C-alpha cells in the first residue's frame, strides 16, 4: 500500500530494519539470494558499512552477511 516505502536494500540506513518485498535479479544471483534466506517478508537489519561505504553488512536470519551495493540494490525492501 505504502509503495513509497519500498526501496533497494542499500538505501536502508544503518541500524534500521527492513522487510524483503521482492528480488529483481534472476538466474544464479537470484538463487544465491534465496539460499541466503532472502525470501519475501524476511526481516533484515543494516548493521555496518565497510570503511569505503561499500559493501554493507546486513543481519540476515542469524548471520551477518556483506552485500555489495550492486547486489543489495536488486533486493527491494520495505523500511520498518
Amino acid at each position: 500500500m505504502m509503495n513509497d516505502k519500498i526501496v533497494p536494500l542499500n538505501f536502508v540506513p544503518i541500524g534500521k530494519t527492513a522487510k524483503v518485498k521482492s528480488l529483481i535479479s534472476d538466474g544464479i544471483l537470484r538463487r544465491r539470494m534465496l539460499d541466503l534466506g532472502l525470501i519475501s517478508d524476511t526481516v533484515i537489519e543494516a548493521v555496518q558499512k565497510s570503511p569505503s561505504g561499500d559493501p554493507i553488512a546486513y543481519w540476515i536470519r542469524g548471520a551477518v552477511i556483506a552485500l555489495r551495493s550492486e547486489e543489495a540494490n536488486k533486493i527491494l525492501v520495505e523500511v520498518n
Partner: protein
Amino acid sequence: MGLTSQSTGLALWENDLNIEKLTPGDKVIALSGNPNVGKSTVFNSLTGLNQHTGNWPGKTVTNAQGRYRHNDVNFIMVDIPGTYSLMANSVEEEVARDFVCFGNPDAVVVVTDATCLERNLNLVLQTLEITARVVVCVNLIDEAKRKKIKIHCDTLAKRLGVPVIPTNARSKKGLEKLMDAVYDTAYKRINVNPIKITYDETIEQAIRRVQDKIRNRVDGKINDRWVALKLLDGDETILESINKYLGINLFDDCGLLELLDQTRNALSDNHNGHGQLRDMIVSHLIRIAEELGREAVTFEDKQYNHIDRKIDRILTSRIFGLPIMLSLLAFIFWLTIAGANVPSEYLADFLFGIETKLTDLFTSLMAPEWLHGVLVLGIYRTIAWVVSVMLPPMAIFFPLFTLLEDLGYLPRVAFNLDHYFKRACAHGKQALTMCMGCLILHDIREVPPALA
C-alpha cells in the same frame, strides 16, 4: 564418431564416484555442511592422520577422504564441499549433490552451526529430500552457549525424524555420540521418519505425475520424488548426472520429456511464470527451516551479540578500520621476520655443526671426494639451508594467521578491502591470498558469480 571416452567405456571409470573400501563391510559416510561451520574440524577430529586428498572425477574440487574405526567397523568419511544448498548452482554444489545422490553413502552427516542453526537447516532439509539416512551434527555448541543460544536437539530430532547430535568438535565433545548415531544410521538400527516436505497442492500433483514416469525408469536407484521435483524446477543437470552415474539415459525418453514440458507449462501458468515456481520451491524450505528454528532454538539473551557488534564496529569503521588492519598485519610480518632470526641462527648453527661432523665421518671412512660432495656439500647443505631459513618464519606465521582466522578477523579484512580489490577486478577474499605472499590461480577462477 571415433574413439571417445564415452564409446570406450572410459567415461564409466572417470565418473566413478565409488569409494575404495579396504574390506567390503566398510561404511561410507558423506560429510556435508555449509561453509565455515567447523566441518573440517569434525573431519580431522574423527579421522586424525588417516586421510588422503584427491580431486573429484573430472572436477577441480578437492576431495578429502579419511578413515576411522568405531564399534569394530571401518568408516570411510568423505568430506564433500561445503555448500549452502544442493541446487547445483556451482561446481561445488553439483559435486556435493552428486555424491549424496550417486555415491551411495551409508549415511550423510550434515554439520551445522549452532549459532545460526536456522540458516543451516535449509541444507539439512534439502539433504532429507534426497535420502533419509541423515545424521545432523549441531557443531559449535559451546560457542552457541556463550552467545546464550539454546538448541533443543531432542525437539529438532523429533521434527526432522533423524538423529540430531550436539558437538563441539574442537574439544572432541559429542563426537562419540555422533559416531554412535552414524553407526546406527549406516546399519539401519534406528527408525528414521524423515520430515515430509509437502508443497502446494498443484506442485504436489505435478510431482506425482512426473514421479510415476520416472519410477519406471530409475528402478529405485534414486529417490524419484526428488528427481521429479528437480525436473519441474528446471534443473536439467540432474538428467546428465543420472545418465553419467546410473547409466540411465532419460534424454531420449520422449514420453517423459513431453509430460515434463506439459506439466511445467501448466504449473507456470498457475504460478505466474516459471520463476515464481522456483521461488516457491526454495521459499518453502526456508519457511520450514524458520518454523523449525522457532521450535528448536531459544535465544536466552537477545542482546547477546552486542559486544561482538561493538568490536566489529571499530574493526571495520571508516576511521579505524584500515589503520587497525594495516598495523595488525605489519605487526605480524614484523614478528615473523624479527622473531624468525634468532631460531634461524640456532638452527643454522646446529645443522652446519652436523655438516662438519658428517665431513669428519666421511674423511674417517675414507669415502671418495665426489660422494662427500654430492651427499654432504650438495644434498645435506641445501636441505640445511632451506630448513633453517624457511622453517622458523613458517612456524611463526602460520599459527598467527590461524589465530586471526579463528578469531574471525579474516572475513573483516575481506570486508574492509573488498571495495579496493573490486576496482582491480578482484575481490576482498583475495586480500588474504596476497597477505600470504602468493596468489593461487584457483582463487581467481573461483570468484562467485554473485560477487564477480
